[in-house]
C-alpha cells in the first residue's frame, strides 16, 4: 500500500482518487476550497460524462431520456430537433464519426513522439480504417472547417446552428466562423448522449459516496502550495497551513500550467520541461452565474441555449477577442431542481481594464437583460456570478478556463497539453497530470481523472 496524493477535489480529483484507491493505494485528496466538487458546482452539462468512465469508477447512475435542445432566439423559445431542416441528416453524419471519437476518448492518446513504438499508432489507425477511406478523408476535410460552413453544407438555418455550436465553444477560443470550430462542434456533439438523472449534483453525490466507501481521505480547505521534488522524483506536497505530506505518487488535477509552473519550483523542474508548458493557451471566455429559481424557467427545460444566430454568437466571441465586455453574450442555461447554472460565452479573462467590481456588475446586469427577454427574472433568487477572474481565483482555473486549456487542433488528443505530457506522466518520477487540461477534451467527460489514475 503506497501513499498517494491527489491535488484537487473536483470531479477529476474524485475520479482519480477512486481509481487509485481501488488499485490499492492509500489516497488523500486535498481540496483548496471549503467544499469538494470543484467545477461540479458551476457546470451543468452531464450529457458528456462517458459511460465507460462511470463503469471504471464503479458508479451506476441513471440517465434521463434525451431532451430536445431548447433554443431561445429572437424572442421566442424553439426546439432544435430533427424537424429543423438538415438537423437529422447532420446528426446522422455526426453518428458516423462517433465510434471513432468515442474510442479515442476512452483511452490514453497515442504516443506520437519519434521514439515511440510504431504500434502505438495501430489502435487509432484501425479505428480510422473502420471509417473507411472516404470517411477518413471526410473527417480530414471537416476538421479545418469553421462550424458555420460545415452546418451550412447540411442546410441548417443559421439560428439553429447557433444552438448547436454554442455549448461546444465554451472550451475553445473560437467563434462559429473560426476555422477548426467544426471539429470542436463535432467532438462535443459526438461525445454527448443523455444527461445524468439529477444532474451535476447527483454526479457529485455519487462520486463522493464511492470515494468514501473506498476509504479515500478527503481534506477540504487544504490548498497544496508546493510539490516537493527530490532527485527527480516527487517526495511529497506542502500545504498552505504549513504541513508537509510525504508521498511518492502525486496526481494533480489542477491545470498543467499551475502544476508545473507554480506548484513545482522552477529550480527542480527538469531542464527543458517548462518551456512549452508556458505556451499552453488557457484564454477563458466564459463567465458563470449560479442561481436558484423559485419556479421553473423556460418551461422547466434542463438545457436552453440563449442566442439569436451564428452572427450573434460570433459577435459575442469578438467581444471576448477584443477584451471587451460582451454586449450580448450567448448563454447556456442548465436547470436542475431549482438550481440554475448559466454559462455566458463572450466574457474575456483579460478584460481591458480588468474585472473591477463595476465591470462585474455590468456583466451581471447584461446577463439579466438577456434573460429577461425570455423569462421573468424576478424568479431568480440568490445569484452568484463568477467572472473568468473569479473562476481563476476561486476554482484555481488557469486563465479562468473551465477546461484548464483551450480545445484546439494543436491542444487536443496527443497534443494536449504537449506530446511529452499527453499520457499523464511527467518527467518527474511519480508526478501525474489528470485534470481537464488533459485528454480527452471536447466536453465534460470525467475521463481525464480516470485515465490518469489508470496510468499510475
Amino acid at each position, binding site marked *: 500500500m503506497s501513499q498517494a496524493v491527489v491535488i484537487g477535489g473536483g470531479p477529476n480529483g474524485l475520479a482519480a482518487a477512486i481509481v487509485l484507491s481501488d488499485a490499492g493505494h492509500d489516497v488523500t485528496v486535498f481540496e483548496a476550497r471549503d467544499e469538494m466538487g470543484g467545477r461540479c458546482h458551476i457546470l451543468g452539462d452531464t450529457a458528456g460524462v462517458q459511460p465507460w468512465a462511470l463503469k471504471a469508477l464503479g458508479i451506476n447512475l441513471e440517465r434521463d431520456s434525451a431532451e430536445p435542445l431548447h433554443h431561445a432566439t429572437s424572442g421566442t423559445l424553439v426546439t432544435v430537433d430533427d424537424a429543423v431542416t438538415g438537423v437529422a441528416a447532420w446528426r446522422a453524419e455526426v453518428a458516423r464519426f462517433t465510434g471513432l471519437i468515442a474510442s479515442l476518448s476512452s483511452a490514453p492518446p497515442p504516443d506520437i513522439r519519434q521514439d515511440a513504438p510504431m504500434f502505438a499508432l495501430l489502435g487509432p489507425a484501425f479505428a480510422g480504417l473502420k471509417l473507411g477511406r472516404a470517411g477518413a478523408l471526410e473527417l480530414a476535410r471537416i476538421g479545418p472547417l469553421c462550424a458555420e460552413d460545415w452546418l451550412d453544407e447540411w442546410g441548417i438555418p443559421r439560428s439553429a446552428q447557433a444552438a448547436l455550436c454554442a455549448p461546444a465553444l465554451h472550451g475553445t477560443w473560437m467563434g462559429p466562423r473560426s476555422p477548426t470550430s467544426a471539429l470542436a462542434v463535432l467532438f462535443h456533439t459526438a461525445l454527448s448522449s443523455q444527461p445524468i438523472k439529477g444532474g451535476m449534483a447527483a454526479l457529485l453525490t455519487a462520486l463522493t459516496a464511492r470515494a468514501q466507501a473506498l476509504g479515500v481521505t478527503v481534506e477540504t480547505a487544504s490548498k497544496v502550495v508546493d510539490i516537493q521534488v527530490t532527485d527527480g522524483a516527487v517526495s511529497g506536497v506542502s500545504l498552505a497551513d504549513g504541513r508537509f505530506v510525504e508521498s511518492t505518487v502525486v496526481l494533480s488535477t489542477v491545470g498543467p500550467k499551475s502544476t508545473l509552473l507554480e506548484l513545482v519550483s522552477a529550480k527542480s*523542474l527538469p531542464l*527543458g520541461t*517548462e518551456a512549452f508548458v508556458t505556451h499552453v493557451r488557457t484564454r477563458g471566455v466564459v463567465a458563470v452565474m449560479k442561481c436558484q429559481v423559485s419556479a421553473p424557467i423556460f418551461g422547466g427545460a434542463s438545457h436552453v441555449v440563449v442566442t439569436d444566430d451564428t452572427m450573434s454568437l460570433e459577435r459575442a466571441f469578438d467581444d471576448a477577442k477584443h477584451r471587451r465586455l460582451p454586449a450580448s453574450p450567448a448563454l447556456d442555461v442548465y436547470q436542475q431542481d431549482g438550481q440554475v447554472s448559466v454559462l455566458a460565452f463572450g466574457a474575456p479573462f483579460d478584460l481591458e481594464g480588468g474585472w473591477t467590481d463595476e465591470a462585474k456588475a455590468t456583466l451581471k446586469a447584461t446577463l439579466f437583460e438577456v434573460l429577461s427577454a425570455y423569462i421573468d427574472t424576478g424568479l431568480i433568487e440568490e445569484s452568484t456570478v463568477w467572472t473568468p477572474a473569479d473562476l481563476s481565483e476561486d476554482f484555481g482555473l488557469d486563465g479562468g478556463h473551465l477546461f484548464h486549456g483551450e480545445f484546439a487542433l494543436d491542444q487536443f488528443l496527443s497534443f494536449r497539453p504537449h506530446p511529452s505530457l499527453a499520457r499523464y506522466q511527467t518527467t518527474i518520477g511519480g508526478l501525474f497530470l489528470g485534470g481537464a487540461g488533459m485528454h480527452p477534451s471536447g466536453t465534460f467527460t470525467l475521463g481525464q481523472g480516470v485515465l490518469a489514475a489508470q496510468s499510475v
Partner: protein
Amino acid sequence: MTMRTSPFHPKTSALCASYAWKEWAGYAAVCHYMPHSEAEVFAVRSTAGLLDITPLYKLDVKGPDAGVFLSRIWTRDISTIGRGRVVYSAMCDERGYVLDDGTVARIGEDHYRCTSSEPWLAWFLNHSRGFDVEITDTTDALCGLALQGPRARAILKGITEFDMDKMRFFRMRKTTVGGVPAWVSRTGYTGDLGYEIFCENQHALALYDAIVAAGEPHGMIPMGLDALDVARIEAGFVLQGVDYISAKSCLIDALKSTPDDAGLGWTVDLDRAPFIGQAAIRAERAAGPVWDLVGLELSWEGLEALYAEAGLPPHLAPEACRSSVPVYDLDGEQVGQVTSSVWSPTCKRYLALAQVRRPHHYLGTELFVEYTPMFERKRVSATVVEKPFFDPPRKRSVPERPAPAPAEPAPDPSEEVAS
C-alpha cells in the same frame, strides 16, 4: 545605412592608416592599423598591443540566484567562484552541443558579467524563470579595450588605483584607470600577459588617451583583429564560427560540436546540480566522444620540399588562415579538417587547430594536411602536438618584486624577443 562604431572610434579611426576594417557583431572593427599586421603581432609578443573589444556581447546577471542560475547555463560550476574571479567556460544546448564559449566574471557578491561571441539575452531570459535574477544586455552600454603583451602590467601599473602587481591570472577588480572607473580583469585572447578593461561609454575617450599616454613609452601600439587571430592561434584558443560552429547557427547536426568535440571538454564540471546539456554530455562520454580539437604542427621540411618541387622559395605569410582544409591519416582517409592555421612568427613553426576524429587525436599522431603551394593540391605531414603552442610564464606569473620603470628605449619590434 552606416555600420555601428564603438565609442573608441574617433581614436581608432584616426590611427587606422590602412583603412582595413571588417564587421564584428555589427560593429566596424579594425583589421590592422599598419599596412600589414606583422608589426602588431610582434608588439603583442614584445611590448604591448591595444585592441578595441567593445563588440563582445556582454550580459550582466544580478540577484541572489545569479550564481546558481549561471551554473545552469554554463558548463563550469559558476556557483563556486569567488568574488573577483573570472572563469572561461562553454555553454551548451539541451542536446549537449556547444552554443558559445566565453568568460564569466563575478564582479560583486550578486553581480556577474558574461562575455560571448553571440547574443544570448533571449536564451538567458527563457531559462531564468523561477530564479531571482535580473538580466541585462550590456553590450552597447559598456565599451572595452584589451591590453596584451609583456609590458601590459607595467603600462597599467602607473595609471590604475589598484596595485597591478597583485592582480593574479583570471582575477578582476573594479578600480580606476587613468582616473576613469573601470573593471579590469587579467584575461585575454592572446595567451600572453594581458588585461581586459571595460568602462561605461562616456569614459571611453578619456580611458583610451590615458592608456596610450602610459603605453607609448613602452612601445605599445594599437592592434587589430588580424594580429589577434595570429596570437590566439599561437595560444591554441578556439574561435566560435571558425573552429566550431554554434549549434544555434547550424542547420544540421553534423555541423554541431559537443564540448569534447571542440576541445572544450575541460570546461565541463559534470557531476553537480543539473545544467543544460549535462545528460547529453554524460551519454556522449559513456559512448565515447567522436571528435577532438587538436593542435597540429606542419612539417617545415615538408613545406620546404613542396615549394622546392614547384621551384619556389617557401612563402608563408604570418597571417591567420581560416580556410578549412582536409586532414588525412597515413592511409589517406580523411579524418578531420584544419579550421585555423598560421605560420607563427613567435614560434617559427607552422601551427594549426584541427578537428580530428578520435583516435587520431593522441599526441604524436602523424597525419597529413592538404596544402596548395601552387594551384595543385598537395599534402604535407603534420603531427599532433600540445596546446597551447605558446605559453609564456609571464602569462600567469605575479612579480616577486616591482616591475622596472620604463627607462629603457622601446625595443625594435622586428627583433625577436625571447619569452
